[in-house]
């Protein structure tokens, strides 16, 4: 009667999403590699990298939706976890350059030689090994989120106050990473990457593989989020979102739930950042900019807060629009458009694209007797007014 945690999480919409992402993940690289250049169906390499970037943003959006849409934690500093994951990957890529750098130092990255550093700082140890870097991609954002969340949730910092301190967190990291003596390349960040696991990062094959991996990561992140949302834990999270103190009086340790989901979400954001860096070829402190985190929240609002598919879709749609408009004559007006989009979505589509579609769909088939139970299967309830 009550199926296993994994099967329960896969309803029709979720299965469709997974299949579509998988198809894109396979077809785009295949078309890029196998079809002759100039063919109508051949996806050019620059587009593979661009779409890979969107997929990474979609993972970031999922991680934000998991805490905001389902648990009511509005983090305006999630870009920090994304950037930390990115830096961990960037450090690995820097050390892979070896003696091929401008200064030819086999151990020290160029910027350290330039700063006259004589040896590698301790926190760069281990990053020459991929497994270590991969572990740090999860561990660094996760640990920061755990410590931050432990302090914030235990002191019952909620709502707009929590949002403000998450902004302060990412801003503090922005300032720290800008400093040359912090040891992460200052305002130039980390770049000029050569290879990843022995493959040239610029090569078409590597880009195609990274794209496929990003899609795979999106699927895994989606399935994890979906399993959580569909479990009883998901119901507790929604309860916390809608009536936190009521949940506490039922005997749930609200702080533990928040801490769990916040830490998990930070790890997901870290993975997104780690996949993003080799595809764009650079990571610098601007990724910590508070505006980036706010933009990511807008993607989720546009796509549909509290709907996982919506968050991923919102990230792709808004970023596609960004690419489209910033490459044309309308470029100087993009930020105005983004602002207008946010206002319009808040006024006209408070549930976002997917949320609005869902309620329309429910209404359309309301005559059918099991409409209510179908709504429940989605595990989606409209979030109450922002708390």
């Amino acid at each position, binding site marked *: 009667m009550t199926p296993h945690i994994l099967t329960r999480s896969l309803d029709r919409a979720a299965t469709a999403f997974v299949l579509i992402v998988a198809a894109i993940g396979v077809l785009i690289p295949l078309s890029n590699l196998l079809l002759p250049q100039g063919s109508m169906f051949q996806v050019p390499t620059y587009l593979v990298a661009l779409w890979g970037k969107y997929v990474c943003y979609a993972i970031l959006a999922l991680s934000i939706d998991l805490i905001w849409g389902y648990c009511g934690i509005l983090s305006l500093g999630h870009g920090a976890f994304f950037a930390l994951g990115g830096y961990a990957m960037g450090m690995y890529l820097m050390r892979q350059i070896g003696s091929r750098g401008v200064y030819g130092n086999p151990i020290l990255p160029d910027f350290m030689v330039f700063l006259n550093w004589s040896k590698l700082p301790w926190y760069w140890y281990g990053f020459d090994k991929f497994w270590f870097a991969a572990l740090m991609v999860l561990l660094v954002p996760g640990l920061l989120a755990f410590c931050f969340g432990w302090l914030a949730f235990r002191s019952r910092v909620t709502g707009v106050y929590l949002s403000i301190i998450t902004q302060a967190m990412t801003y503090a990291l922005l300032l720290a990473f800008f400093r040359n003596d912090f040891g992460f390349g200052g305002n130039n960040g980390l770049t000029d990457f050569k290879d990843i696991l022995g493959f040239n990062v610029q090569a078409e094959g590597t880009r195609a593989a990274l794209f496929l991996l990003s899609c795979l990561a999106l699927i895994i992140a989606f399935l994890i989020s979906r399993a959580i949302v569909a*479990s*009883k*834990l998901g119901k507790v999270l*929604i309860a916390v979102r809608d009536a936190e103190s009521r*949940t506490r009086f039922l*005997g749930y340790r609200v702080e533990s739930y928040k801490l769990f989901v916040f830490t998990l979400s930070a790890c997901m954001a870290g993975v997104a950042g780690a996949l993003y860096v080799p595809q764009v070829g650079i990571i610098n402190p601007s990724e910590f900019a508070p505006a980036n985190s706010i933009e990511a929240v807008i993607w989720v609002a546009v796509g549909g807060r509290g709907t996982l598919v919506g968050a991923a879709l919102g990230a792709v749609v808004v970023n596609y629009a960004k690419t489209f408009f910033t490459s044309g004559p309308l470029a100087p007006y993009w930020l105005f458009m983004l602002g207008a989009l946010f206002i319009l979505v808040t006024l006209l589509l408070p549930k976002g694209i997917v949320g609005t579609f869902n309620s329309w769909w429910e209404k359309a088939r309301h005559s059918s007797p099991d409409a209510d139970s179908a709504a429940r299967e989605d595990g989606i309830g409209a979030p109450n007014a922002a708390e």
Partner: protein
Amino acid sequence: MNVMDTRATSAMLYLDGVHVSFDGFHAINNLSLALEPGEMRAIIGPNGAGKTTMMDIITGKTKPDEGTVLFDGTVDLTRLDETRIAELGIGRKFQKPTVFESQTVQDNLLLALNVDHSVRGTLFWRGSKAESERIDKVLETIRLTDARNRLAGSLSHGQKQWLEIGMLLAQDPKVLLVDEPVAGMTDVETHLTAELLKEINRNHTIMVVEHDMTFVRELGVKVTCLHEGSVLAEGSIDQVSSNERVVEVYLGR
């Protein structure tokens, strides 16, 4: 840690000499009250008498400045937080019905069940027959069986109040604190609620705070009247309502 060697009292809930003040305002002033196991007690009193503050103290939301608050004769409630107190078996229904509006009636009860409340327990939770039977039974008691798959937000005001009482039942607490259960209800709903509470009282100790005298009369239990944070009168509804000081307080001097 919080358990004393012997029971200090036979009472299920025991308050003695409790004081609370907020910025110099004495919300609770030398309040003493005892609820015996299996008892149902109605608490009345004008606005600002300290009824809700008293519930806040019992459930750990407010810490008293002085005084003793004992549960089951052994547990000092003033040292515990809300979650711990809820786990011990004190359930609370709020004045304003707070159900989880975006979830179904059934899920609201599922969340309230007194089973494993840990993160891991809920993540790997798989329903059991015993659990669904308990939910069915509660649904029947609160007369919401037909509405089980409806979103709680779509219920009428009276039904939300019952759902909240149902959530209390699902928690299966030893003591139920019920704050203004019939506020805003129709006469029929009020009558049904009194029936419901009497039915629940067969297995549970209950404390009801209520303004509606018809309802309190219908419950037919011992009444405590609070005024300015302490007990003004105690006894049957007839005794209390004929008490001169109670009349004075309610009508104003």
